[in-house]
């Protein structure tokens, strides 16, 4: 039952859902005021940022489980989730830079949100550098889990606090057709569609990544699959 859900239902639902969400993002809502068609990048940029935070949270939960029980499967899940968090944070950064080019005239201007995401990328890049530096599986798992938990403490601060307490050009309230503040209902609908689609995509890739890591460990080091 669980296999059928992972191998059949999840891919099919993700494929259809995201295709529908893409069509809705282009055809169902007008362009965002002042940004033209390129403003539609928001419908993919915001879900990418959301999924990166979700993935870092999943990685942290699994690091805590690993420290508590020392089961290597939890470490596998933490690595897979942290890697995906990094990937989606990178997608959010690049798509955000294109948005910035259209809205602010430059790809990068060290806005608090831009600085925050660079720090996040460096923090989680260091997680993988740390893992690569330790050969012993158990020692690597424990140190990486402890680092991962410490790294996640900064996520709420960097993602939610810094951009709100510092002056930022990043748009929170102006993503609508007439620029009057708040988000129009149809735009919010599209954002919810793409966010659910990206979350499904994360779950699917996460399941593939965890299986790949387990298989790789099995082939390289032996042990129960």
């Amino acid at each position, binding site marked *: 039952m669980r296999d059928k859900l992972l*191998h059949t239902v999840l891919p099919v639902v*993700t494929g259809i859902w*995201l*295709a529908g969400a893409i069509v809705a993002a282009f055809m169902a809502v007008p362009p965002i005021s002042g940004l033209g*068609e390129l403003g539609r990048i928001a419908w993919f940029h915001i879900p990418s940022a959301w999924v990166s935070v979700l993935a870092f949270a999943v990685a942290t939960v699994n690091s805590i489980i690993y420290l508590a029980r020392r089961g290597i499967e939890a470490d596998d899940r933490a690595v897979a989730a942290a890697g995906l968090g990094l990937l989606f944070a990178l997608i959010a950064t690049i798509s955000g830079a294109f948005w910035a080019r259209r809205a602010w005239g430059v790809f990068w201007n060290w806005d608090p949100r831009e600085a925050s995401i660079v720090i996040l990328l460096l923090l989680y890049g260091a997680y993988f550098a740390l893992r690569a530096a330790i050969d012993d599986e158990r020692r690597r798992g424990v140190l990486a889990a402890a680092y991962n938990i410490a790294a996640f403490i900064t996520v709420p601060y960097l993602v939610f606090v810094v951009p709100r307490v510092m002056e930022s050009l990043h748009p929170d309230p102006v993503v609508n057709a007439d620029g009057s503040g708040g988000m129009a209902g149809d735009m919010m609908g599209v954002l919810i569609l793409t966010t659910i689609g990206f979350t499904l995509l994360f779950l699917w890739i996460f399941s593939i990544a965890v*299986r790949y890591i387990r298989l790789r460990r099995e082939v390289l080091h032996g042990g129960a699959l």
Partner: protein
Amino acid sequence: MSDLLWATLTIVLIWGGIFAYLLGLDRRLRRLERAVTGTAEEADA
């Protein structure tokens, strides 16, 4: 066709490519898992 429709089709096609790649990866991984599990079972026997 309008530019917007072309853009939509292009992005849907790109998503289709990513989807097909992930699906292929999933299938290949399942085959490998079966092969490794089979090898382990043979070794146990």
